[in-house]
């Protein structure tokens, strides 16, 4: 690579990293730096008088614990549903050739093309009728609809990467189709399945619109913070923002190897 080429590559890398990391860093500084740090201008590079006070105060705000619990339930259920529905669909896409398989692949993505804002009113009506309104279960159902396309397509790629011969060998050596899946396919797919599960979790955890529309008292953390924070001082907003970011970062960091593998980037 030429000198200028290398320079372009590295400046690109630095710019992309900065694009993601600088805002996160600034939120972190604001969250731990107290009122002074939040209002200081120009912003300092290094955090000043860091303390956990705001985070702790924030966590003690009434309703935060309940909202966090709702978020966990909704995200957990979303993870469960999208895997239970998405993995079999992905397996079918990977292993069987059936009429309309390609169309199905496309259609699955189209669920994301529906603007939630249009669906919000009818959904609310139906949810009130069925008693799903204002429950984490109801929120998780909508979130599952959002996460399912990814779960299906990602697991399809995952199962495609497991040679058919492994299954055939299992059949020849005495397994039924389900035994072969349990003994051979699932153990090999497990890391990838875990990754797509976490992905579904993060999608649900971060989703705010549907969660705000479909709940009143039983809000998820994102929806709750959205209402609470708009009325709080700015350094508390930083603290709330930080708490919202952390789980996603931790999860994505934990499964980064599998995400890379899913996207075809080899990681060493």
């Amino acid at each position, binding site marked *: 690579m030429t000198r200028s080429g290398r320079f372009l590559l590295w400046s690109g890398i630095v710019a992309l990293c900065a694009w993601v990391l600088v805002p996160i860093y600034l939120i972190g500084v604001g969250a731990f730096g107290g009122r002074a740090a939040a209002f200081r201008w120009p912003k300092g590079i290094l955090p000043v008088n860091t303390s956990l006070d705001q985070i702790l105060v924030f966590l003690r705000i009434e309703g935060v614990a309940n909202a966090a619990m709702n978020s966990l339930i909704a995200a957990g259920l979303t993870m469960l549903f999208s895997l239970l529905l998405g993995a079999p669909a992905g397996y079918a896409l990977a292993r069987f050739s059936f009429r309309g398989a390609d169309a199905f692949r496309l259609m699955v993505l189209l669920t994301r093309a529906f603007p939630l804002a249009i669906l919000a009113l009818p959904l609310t009506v139906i949810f009130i009728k069925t008693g799903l309104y204002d429950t984490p279960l109801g929120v998780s159902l909508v979130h599952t609809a959002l996460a399912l396309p990814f779960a299906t397509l990602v697991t399809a790629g995952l199962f495609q990467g497991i*040679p058919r*011969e492994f299954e055939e*060998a*299992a*059949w*020849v*050596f*005495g*397994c*039924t189709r389900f035994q072969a899946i349990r003994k051979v396919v699932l153990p090999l797919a497990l890391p990838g399945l875990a990754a797509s599960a976490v992905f579904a979790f993060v999608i649900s955890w971060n989703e705010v619109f549907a969660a705000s529309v479909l709940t009143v008292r039983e809000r998820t953390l994102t929806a709750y913070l959205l209402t609470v924070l708009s009325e709080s001082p700015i350094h508390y907003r930083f603290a709330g923002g930080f708490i919202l970011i952390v789980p996603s970062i931790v999860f994505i960091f934990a499964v980064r190897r599998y995400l890379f593998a899913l996207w075809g980037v080899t990681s060493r």
Partner: protein
Amino acid sequence: MAGIVIDRIEKTFGTAKALDAVSLTVADGEFVALLGPSGCGKTTLLRIIAGLESRSGGRVLIGDRDVSDLRPADRGLAMVFQNYAVFPHMTVFENVAFGLRTKNAPEEKVRRNVMRAAELLHIEPYLERYPAKLSGGQRQRVAVARALAVEPAVLLMDEPLSNLDALLRLEMRADLKRVLQEAGTTTVYVTHDQTEAMGLADRIAVMHSGRIVQCDTPMTVYAAPATTFVGGFVGSPPMNFVPIRNEDGRARLDGFEATAPGTGELLLGFRGEDVRIDAPERGLSFAVAVAEPMGSHVLLTGTIADKLVRVVAPTGIRVAAGERIGIVPDPERVVWMSPETGAALPRIIS
């Protein structure tokens, strides 16, 4: 232990006929190689025997039992795959034990069979390792051990050596022959490599576009091919075919003359090593194009009556490209083919 009867198996993909009423009987303990170029249907046939592929017609019997509609698991067979298909998340021991475990064999039997199979294939040192730590050759040994550990009635092998490099293949071939002779298992072995088929099999079934064109012992397939295709596919160099005219029972070309069956235009088939080299005016007139010294012999490539011909000459022969020499095929070993059908004509015993 069991024999296999393949009874008029058909397979169609859409409108294409992949297998056209193929029948084959494999005796108990026999080793049959399915040999043919890619796309001839040999792997499809093997997979139908295994139950991994559906059939469009016909029956498969294993040990007198109709297994056509049984799941692979219930057919009492084992299989070795081309890419080994050794499970990466299990140790070598668990891989070899896999078939026994799914059948809930007692622990003592599992251990005994695994150890015996491991010993047979010299993989005892790796039993606790994971396949990722093994070479291709070692993985293939594990795959064979896994198949033998279940003491199958029938063993199916799908090009098991084709992913190994040349030297390893030679070594593994000799080992396979030893191991399978010891085990005495009925074996069907798919390959496109005629040397593998020649070296390993009791009988070779040569397949061509969805049919078995000849099924016989390796030496018969080699010396008396049923069609020009078999002659050209089996043996290296392939059998030579030269058009020749038969008048009143004597076929003549250049200075060569022999008693021949049929009348009119014929194809004279002979192996490159079944010839005597003579003066240009005697025998078939051979225009040498290339002479390749191979160490043990010299391979001569050229033309007879504008047909490409390869013959094997002893080392020390002095022939240069562009020269003409006489080729006299051994009349005892020539074959006669019909140029229209490509099928062998009955030999005349004189």
